C-alpha cells in the first residue's frame, strides 16, 4: 500500500536581548488517504480507508535566562480537522496546552 505523508515546520525567533527570547513555530502535517489493509485486495471503492488528514499546530515560546526558564503556549490542530491515530480512533480536535520547562 502506498502511504503519502508530508511534514513542514517553520519558525521565527527573536532575541529581545541576550537574556530573553521569543519564538513562534508553525507545523503542518499532511497524510494522504490510505487503505487499512493490503491495497491489492478488494474493490478499491469498497475498502476501509483512513481519510486524508491535514493538521496545523502553532506554538509560542518565551525563554528567559539564556533558555533556563521556558514558557510555551501551544495550540494543536488549530483548524479543528479530523485526524486519526488508527482506524476510526480519532485524535483530539483543537487543543491548547501550556508548558513550563526549567533546564538545569
Amino acid at each position, binding site marked *: *500500500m502506498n502511504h503519502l505523508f508530508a511534514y513542514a515546520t*517553520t519558525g521565527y525567533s*527573536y532575541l529581545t536581548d541576550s537574556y530573553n527570547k521569543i519564538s513562534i513555530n508553525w507545523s503542518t502535517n499532511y497524510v494522504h488517504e490510505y487503505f*487499512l489493509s493490503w491495497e491489492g485486495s*478488494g474493490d478499491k471503492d469498497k475498502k476501509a480507508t483512513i481519510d486524508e488528514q491535514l493538521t496545523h499546530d502553532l506554538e509560542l515560546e518565551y525563554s528567559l535566562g539564556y533558555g533556563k526558564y521556558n514558557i510555551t503556549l501551544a495550540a494543536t490542530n488549530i483548524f479543528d480537522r479530523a485526524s486519526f491515530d488508527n482506524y476510526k480512533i480519532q485524535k483530539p480536535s483543537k487543543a491548547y496546552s501550556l508548558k513550563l520547562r526549567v533546564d538545569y
Partner: protein
Amino acid sequence: MKNSILLACITSIGLIGCGGSNDSNNNATDKSPETQEKLSFAFKDTSEGEPEYLISKEDIMSGTISAQGVGTEQLGWNFFYPVGNTIFISGYQNFDTSSYRLNEAGDTTKLNTFLYDKPLQSFGRIGDQTLIASDAPGAGHTDRKFYTVDANSGLVKSIVEYTIHGVDNGTAGLGTVAWPTGLLVRDNKLFIPFQKLDDAGGYYTPDADTAFIAVYDYPLTPSNNTPTKIIEDPRTTNIGVNGSTTNIIQADNGDIYTMSNGGFTGGFAVPGDHDNKPETPHQGIPATTKPSGILRIANATTEFDASYFFNVEEAAGGKIFWFDYLGGNKAIARIVTDEAGYWWSAFYKDYYTTKLVMLDLINKTSTNIEGIPLHQKRYTSPLEIIDGHIYLSIETATDSHVYKVNIETAEATKGAKIEGKTIKGFYDLNN
C-alpha cells in the same frame, strides 16, 4: 544590546511504498455475459490482518479465486449468515452487522448497518424475511439480548433482554453461564440449545453430561423473556460447537435435529486438565464420556424424542464438528477423525483432521464423501442448495479449493483454486 533573528524552516515529504499490486487485469475484470448469474461468497484473504471480502463471481468451478481488486471489504472476523436474498455480515471484533443484496446490475450493495455492544454469536432465520440473533457473553451473569432483524431493510425490529437458565441473570446457583449455541423458531416456539460454561469466563464445560434446550413461546417480549421449560437429555453432551450457526436444524417434515460434540478438540474441557498449549496434551480427564451424536425433537412436540438417538461417534468413527441440512432427511457433516490435538485444536490451522460425510438422519448411517481430503474448517455459513449442489471450500496443509457436492449422489467435484485462506460460505442472492 544585540538583536538576532533566526529563521528555521524544515520540510519533509515522505512516501512509503510497499509495491502495490499491478495485475489489475486478473479475474477481477473478466466480464462474462450477463446470462450467467453470479454466486456471492465470503472470502478470507491471507494478507495482513486476514481481511474478509464479499465477492460475486460467475465461475467458481475453474481457474482461481482471489480478492485481487474485487469484493467489499469487511473488518475483522465475521459471521456470514444468509436470509433469503440478503447476506448479513456480523463482526466478532468489529461490533456491527452489515447487510447486502444484489442491485439490478447484479452487484452486491449494502442495505444497512446496525451496531451492538456485545458480539452476536447465535443466529437463526424465520422464512426469508427475518434474521434472529443473540449475543452470548461467556462470563458473568447478565441478560442476553435477542435481536429480530428485517431482512428487507437490514434494520433491527426489536431487541429483547432474556434469560436462559436461572443463573445467567445473577440469581445464585450452579455457577455456570448458559451459552446459546443456536436459535430455531418452529410453530411459535423458540428453541435455544446451550452449553453450560463456567461463570468465571474460562470457557470450561463443567456440566457436559447432558444436552440442554431452553424452550420459549415466540415472539419474545419484555414480559415473555424466560423459558417455559428447559428440556434435558442424558444420552449425549451439551449441544453445539462454539461459533457454528447450524448446531440445530429442521427437516422438511418439521422434525428438529441437534448435534453434540463433547470432545476436547471441539472445546470441551474441565479445569486443570490442560494449559491450552499444543505441547501439553490433556491429562485424560474428559469433560464427558457421553458419545457425540444427534438428538431429535419430533414435529409438533417440544420434548426430546426418547426413541431416537443417532450415535454419530459410532457410525462415523469420530465426533461431529459441524452439520447442516440437505433435504430428504439427509445432512452433511464434518467428523473429527483424530482427538489427539489440544483444547480447541479442531478450530485451528495445522490440525487437518476433519472428514466430510453424508448422514442419513432416519437410518442413522454415515457415508464418507469420496474425493474430499482430510481438512480443517472453523466456520461454515448455512448452506444454500443451488441446482442440487452445495459448495464448500476445503483447506488442507497445501492448498484450498472450492468443491461442489451433489446432494443426491454425494459425489464431490473439485473446483477453483482459492488464492486466500478460506471461503466461509456461498450464496445465491439472485433468487
